[in-house]
């Protein structure tokens, strides 16, 4: 009952100065709307960058790293004197082959893991693409193309031809679009490659892909795994890398650690391999929150100001209410209610406006200067959590902004005012 009276007084106060109430509400509305727009857009950008990154980075990459541990030297054994300290300058690694031993068993074992979506064994080597007298530096990945295609959704990135073409030709090659441009070749053309160990081989172009990352599209080609093994003069179980896609890439880090322990080969998860991209994601997130919270605080100060003005104008009314038996709690309720009503209306209209703006932005064509970027519209994500956070924070801001003036109102001494 008590609250009903206080609420009706609050309502009358709000309605008797409509302009002020609307302006205060709009402050919150724009604050929340900008928050929704910014966070939706920034998260969209993050999502896009992450997707692009994941289209060239496996969730987990297992490989045989060059050992750089030189703490042990045969020179120490030679002197056989425990007091002698031996210093070896400029140690070099011994000749080792960087392949993954026992690859077939590891692959078979990995395929049993239920979390794993796709496993693609890989043999990569640097090559020179011969273009007349010019040699262009690049690399080729020997893969089982079906596995690789599942890993990176390669089929979507094919500009010409299909990935299946590689299976039907023994000398087929899928080439990055930038590289194909440089070499001035197209489907059906022959290209000759030279490896660092001097072997040369000719391939026929059966497909051209564009991943959207210049350094890959300008240097990378796919051929069948057996072709590279042949090029390097290795047997059919010789591979250097295993790329893995998980069904849920949140497990990448713990899984990578588990694989390292199990197989003894270095395992990188995608977040570690792309820490700079992850860092920029964090920076964008922080920026978004800082700007949004600033907007909301500005709106909060607007409400604080308006509430203070209202209370200054309502000193007499407060004194009368107190004389009639309204307690301090009632006075706080009356003015805090006004503030929270403003906040609630502002937050609701704010998320509606925010959604409208975000949706509009997601329909704006992205001004792409080249077809490398596989982006048709501005990237925007729509997540309920952003909207809930917006409403929560909007109401919280107005609560805090209204609380101090309301407390001040409740402390007004009625005698001083009633006596004039």
């Amino acid at each position, binding site marked *: *009952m*008590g609250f009903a*009276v206080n609420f009706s007084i609050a309502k009358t106060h709000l309605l008797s100065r409509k302009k002020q109430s609307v302006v205060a509400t709009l402050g919150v509305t724009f604050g929340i709307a900008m928050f929704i727009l910014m966070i939706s857009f920034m998260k969209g950008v993050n999502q896009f960058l992450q997707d692009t990154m994941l289209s060239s980075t496996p969730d987990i990459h297992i490989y045989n790293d060059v050992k750089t541990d030189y703490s042990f030297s045969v020179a120490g054994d030679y002197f056989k004197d425990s007091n002698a300290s031996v210093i070896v300058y400029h140690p070099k690694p011994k000749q080792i082959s960087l392949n993954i031993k026992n690859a077939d068993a590891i692959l078979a074992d990995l395929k049993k893991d239920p979390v794993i979506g796709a496993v693609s064994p890989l043999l990569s080597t640097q090559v020179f693409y011969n273009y007349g007298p010019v040699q262009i530096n690049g690399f080729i990945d020997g893969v089982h193309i079906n596995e690789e295609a599942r890993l990176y959704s390669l089929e979507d990135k094919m500009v010409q031809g299909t990935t299946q073409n590689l299976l039907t030709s023994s000398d087929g090659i899928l080439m990055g679009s930038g590289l194909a441009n440089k070499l001035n070749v197209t489907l059906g053309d022959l290209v000759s490659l030279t490896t660092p160990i001097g072997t040369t081989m000719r391939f026929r172009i059966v497909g051209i892909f564009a991943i959207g990352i210049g350094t890959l599209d300008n240097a990378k080609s796919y051929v069948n795994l057996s072709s590279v093994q042949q090029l390097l003069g290795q047997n059919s179980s010789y591979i250097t890398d295993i790329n893995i896609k998980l069904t849920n890439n949140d497990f990448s880090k713990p899984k990578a650690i588990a694989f390292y322990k199990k197989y003894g080969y270095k395992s990188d998860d995608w977040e570690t391999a792309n820490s700079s991209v992850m860092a920029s994601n964090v920076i964008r997130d922080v920026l978004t929150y800082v700007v949004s919270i600033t907007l909301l605080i500005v709106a909060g100060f607007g409400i604080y100001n308006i509430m203070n003005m209202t209370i200054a104008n309502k000193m*007499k009314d407060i004194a*009368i*209410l107190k004389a*009639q*038996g309204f*307690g301090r709690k009632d006075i706080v309720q009356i003015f805090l209610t006004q503030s929270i009503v403003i906040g609630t209306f502002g937050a609701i209209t704010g998320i509606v406006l925010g959604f409208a703006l975000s949706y509009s932005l997601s329909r704006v064509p992205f001004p792409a200067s080249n077809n490398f970027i596989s982006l048709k519209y501005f990237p925007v994500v729509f997540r309920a959590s952003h909207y809930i956070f917006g409403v929560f924070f909007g109401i919280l801001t107005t609560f805090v902004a209204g609380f101090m003036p309301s407390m001040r109102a409740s402390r007004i001494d009625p005698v001083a005012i009633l006596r004039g």
Partner: protein
Amino acid sequence: MSIILQTDKLNKYFYEPEPFHVLTDISFTVDEGEFIALVGKSGSGKSTLLYLLSTLDTEYEGTLTIKNRLLTGLAQDHLAKFRNDHIGFVFQFHFLLPEFTALENVMMPALKQGKLKRNEIEEKAMEKLRQMQMHDFANKPSAKLSGGQQQRVAIARALINDPAIVMADEPTGNLDSANSEKVIEIFEDISKNNGKTIIMVTHDNDFARRANRIIELVDGKLVR
């Protein structure tokens, strides 16, 4: 006649701008149904005394008892509840809430009290307004009423919760003589016919003489 209000050695000091002893050892009793005029020269402390009696001002020495209840030292929220139930107020500057209609202003203390249903309160408020001959203006915004009309609405508001005591601070101080006369007639009426206890601060001796009893203050001391 039972005692409705009793004070014992009330002392009040002002500390700003400089220490000043406003009220000295005020002890008196008020019987139920009495119409009392509190008089004295400006600065004699009569308004100060009224605000002490009204429980709005709690910074004093001595004790105040209303309806056999010791009010000295009670918490603010208890005093607010007590005022709501037992004390009706009429101020010099009529002080209605400007955004509300006359009827809403009258209903406000009863809505706060929450004893009756809304439509019962509305009925009762109309009846009080009719007693003040203000029922024709019930739905007018109070800001649009004249000074005399506002004061009559304020008296209706003071009576809505059937308080034990009505306190009035110079209720005619801001009115012309015709309206002043009307207000005093209303006070006489509710004193005689409704049996209300009234304590009215006034500096007008003609009006004071129409009360049952006059309490006079000179320099913060009770002389009559």
